[in-house]
């Protein structure tokens, strides 16, 4: 029972990071019908911004983190929207899908070619101590990651529901044409969404890299699991993406321990197939009508 609890909490911690990435998927989808298949690489890259700052520029860790946040917002938020999405958006979803797959490959291979193909240790943000909770050894890092990720989601929800800008962003996502007619600066609201996604990607990056090390290929698994999490939870709901992320984190951990470590990667895919067959709108998602 203790081991189960330990695995459960650890799964929640990893799942909360998946949730950050999955929420990014849903935000971009709602705001601009963008499916970002480079989302995993968006999470891989900020850790390398930090490492480049400390290793090559000799910056202290906090300064490197601050610069990495700014770089993430500029490149993964503003630059991504202006250079890739804006020109392709009028041509529909498919060109964006192809472009973001290409972008992901470019980012991954770029890091491998110009930085390193090795997995690099990333400074731990929290103590590696463990706490005894109900007889189970729970790491401080897991608890801190879980609390920070959930805190970020709660703040995001507070921002979206509790501020006028947040409600304008929701209005833009729900009905962009009417939002424009009412004077909502729609383009700016979409930009904010991309910036938030970049911020979430940065947070996910610095939370997960101390656990899995910083490696050029990290985005492959992260991107796939976050995408599955978004679909499982409901692609059009933030709370769905959160639930999907947490669920996948827990299932991944428990299946590795109790089913088979070799088949752990297959479990999210099996879950995805079941959800698509049984409840295509996701666990908490809402069915969307489409004109055909």
């Amino acid at each position, binding site marked *: 029972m203790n081991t189960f609890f330990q695995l459960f909490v650890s799964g929640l911690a990893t799942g909360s990071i998946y949730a950050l990435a999955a929420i990014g998927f849903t935000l971009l989808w709602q705001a601009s019908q963008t499916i970002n298949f480079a989302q995993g690489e968006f999470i891989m890259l900020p850790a390398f911004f930090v490492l480049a700052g400390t290793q090559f520029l000799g910056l202290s860790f906090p300064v490197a983190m601050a610069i990495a946040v700014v770089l993430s917002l500029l490149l993964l938020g503003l630059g991504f929207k202006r250079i890739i999405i804006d020109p392709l958006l009028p041509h529909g979803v498919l060109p964006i899908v192809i472009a973001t797959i290409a972008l992901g490959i470019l980012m991954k291979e770029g890091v491998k070619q110009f930085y390193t193909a090795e997995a690099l240790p990333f400074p731990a943000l929290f103590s590696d101590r463990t706490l005894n909770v109900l007889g189970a050894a729970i790491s401080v890092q897991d608890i801190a990651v879980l609390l920070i990720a959930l805190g970020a989601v709660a703040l995001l929800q507070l921002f979206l529901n509790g501020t006028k800008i947040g409600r304008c962003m929701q209005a833009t996502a*729900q009905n962009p044409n009417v939002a*424009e007619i*009412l004077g909502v600066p729609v383009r700016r609201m979409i930009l904010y969404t991309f910036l938030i996604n970049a911020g979430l990607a940065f947070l996910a990056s610095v939370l997960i890299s101390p656990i899995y090390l910083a490696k050029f290929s990290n985005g492959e698994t992260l991107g796939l699991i976050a995408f599955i999490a978004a679909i499982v939870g409901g692609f059009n709901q933030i709370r769905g993406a959160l639930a999907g992320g947490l669920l996948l984190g827990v299932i991944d951990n428990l299946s590795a321990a109790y089913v088979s470590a070799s088949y752990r990667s297959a479990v999210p895919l099996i879950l995805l197939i079941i959800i698509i067959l049984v409840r295509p709108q996701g666990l908490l998602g809402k069915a969307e009508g489409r004109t055909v």
Partner: protein
Amino acid sequence: MLELKQVYGGYGKMTILNGTSFKIDKGTITTVIGPNGAGKSTVFKAIFGLLKIRSGNVILNGEDVTSLPPAKMLGKGVTYVPQGRNLFPMLSVRHNLEIGGISSGDQAKIAKRIDEVMEQFPILKEKAKEQAITLSGGQQKQLEIARALLLDPSLILIDEPSIGLSPQMINETFRTLIRLRDQGVTILMVEQNAKAALAMSDFGLVLEQGRSRMYDRADKLLADPRVGQLFLGAHLEEA
């Protein structure tokens, strides 16, 4: 109040408005009628800056407002209620109203205005905290009209307000528009339900193939056999 002078415009290479010209007076309800494809909704988009006008002019209170963007038109006292469902379904009724005033520089005034508007629409006050998606079709239309009032408009462009509503709710919506007219608001309306719309309007405008073919008092248009012919597929003879 509003004048269109020889307005040409359309989508891509397709021309919908072929020299549309008309003039409406302040504090009146004018209904635009015409067969499908006549350019009724397009003319609203052209007035409100959602469609690039190729040539011609839109004059509002003596000022040339041709192709001003929607945000600027809101500032000039014009609001637009498009066809269909125009709410933000997951936001509350109050927050839907709030978005209607978002372009105003005086948000304190808008907060007060929301309360005033809700007094005019008691059902919205009652359901202020509920999601807009929970309202009935008629209530949703009331919310759209209420939201259009947030900025104290002098001109409301309303496209097909009766669409999807029960006869009772259509009457209720038309009564609301008459009440607004009586308060001095000018209303330009597109309506498929031409007979009912003309019956409650002051003036009527017949559009055909992007041109204004008839403009007269609504009761005269109602009695004009040529208007009936137009809706049965006949073309009006050149004036």
